[in-house]
């Protein structure tokens, strides 16, 4: 018997890689939800109501209770809908997954973002750090289809942005972080990830729209012109 207020809503922004993780997780669990697009450059009351501390997306609302932050939402989803587990059952393997998710976020994602938004020394440094981080991820993907082994899981979802967004950032900022010749295990992982029956059917922002968006973000964050317009997705 279902709780009549067991509705699931996801407040997101069309291009956010953080929101994308939640989409993938919900899809993998077969959870139906209502998607609510929020223009983060023209915020509605929703963000301050549902995420008063950070006012950011994604926010998952389950039975009226809001939850922010993709990492936290993913663990919540895994604990609430227990089939198709995203995290391993064994505590040591879970700890290993959490460790690598954190590492990938802090050392690769954050560094690559700085590379996207900076120039000169800062940019060079960020690209170098990103490559070093990618090398460690490469080591840990050797001989495996997905990060946890044979099945797609938590870490794959967290690093999933590599498969579709990193190339866009590289193009926009003229940087080379992921070189397929240097990273065969990651290349294989990208193929497995994109071909996964659930992942390949799920929404992804279009390449052209992403390029325009990130070109704009790079300009703004390098400080060359003020943000005078918002990128509304129709």
């Amino acid at each position, binding site marked *: 018997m279902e709780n009549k207020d067991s509705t699931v809503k996801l407040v997101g922004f069309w291009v956010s890689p953080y929101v994308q993780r939640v989409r993938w997780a919900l899809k993998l669990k077969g959870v139906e939800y209502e998607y609510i697009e929020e223009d983060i450059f023209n915020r509605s009351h929703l963000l301050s109501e549902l995420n008063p*501390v950070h006012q950011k997306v994604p926010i998952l609302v*389950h039975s009226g*209770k809001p*939850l*922010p*932050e993709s*990492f*936290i*939402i993913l*663990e*919540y989803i895994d*604990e*609430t809908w227990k089939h198709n587990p995203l995290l391993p059952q064994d*505590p*040591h393997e*879970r*700890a*290993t997954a*959490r*460790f690598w998710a*954190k*590492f990938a976020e802090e050392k690769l994602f954050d560094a690559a973002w700085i590379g996207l938004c900076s120039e000169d020394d800062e940019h060079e440094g960020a690209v170098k750090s990103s490559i070093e981080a990618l090398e*460690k991820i490469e080591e840990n993907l050797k001989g495996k289809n997905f990060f946890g082994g044979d099945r797609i899981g938590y870490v794959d979802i967290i690093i999933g942005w590599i498969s579709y967004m990193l190339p866009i950032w590289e193009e926009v900022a003229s940087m080379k972080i992921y070189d397929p010749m240097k990273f065969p295990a990651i290349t294989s992982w990208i193929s497995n990830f994109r071909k996964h029956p659930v992942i390949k059917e799920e929404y992804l922002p279009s390449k052209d729209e992403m390029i325009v968006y990130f070109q704009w973000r790079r300009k703004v964050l390098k400080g060359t012109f003020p943000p005078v317009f918002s990128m509304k997705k129709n």
Partner: protein
Amino acid sequence: MAEVKLFGSWGSPFSRRIEVALKLKGVEYEFIEEDIYNKKSPLLLKYNPVHKKVPVLLHNGKPICESVVILEYIDETWEGPSILPKDPYERAMVRFWVKFLDEKCFPAMWQACWSIGEEQEKAKEEATEFLKILEGTLSGKKFFGGDSIGMVDIVANFIAYWFMILQELAGIVVLTKEKFPKLNEWMNEYLNCSIIKENLPLKDKLTAVFQARFQAVAVAAAAAAPSVK
């Protein structure tokens, strides 16, 4: 035979978090003191090759790194008082505040103590803003975890002890009883818990180490400054 070892450092708040958690669960462990400033042991580098930092928990020969990851591991592995709540939503909120503490509060508060000039002013403002948010979550609660300490309290250890020592040494005024009455009350209750107070580094020893570092920073800054005629 289950074997638990903890690679840590007497002065590190991250290391102390793990000791509190292990003691809470009644887990016996061997503590291995690491000289993190001068020479890290080969074992530490073997068990944490990625970050080369403490704490590292070794359980049955398998290492777990990063204090927040270790805390979750301890809660999942051993019986005893819960570090995290059982309800998924409440667990998620605990994880939210833990992240807020480690990713926002700690860096800002640390920066407020160790930086100077405009950078310091900015860090002090940020730290104050974050502490106000924390203050707001303590309404009607003895601890962040409710009636007893939980993961948020364990992770907030640096606020109750390390930061109070540092802010005085740095000559800054951020966390005061007047501005943060609830946090102040929480600190008193927290530091009064036997499991907490029996697992803190000696104040004099910590003060001496911090003072030496402040002096080293001042010397380096003076050496780097251009001489003025």
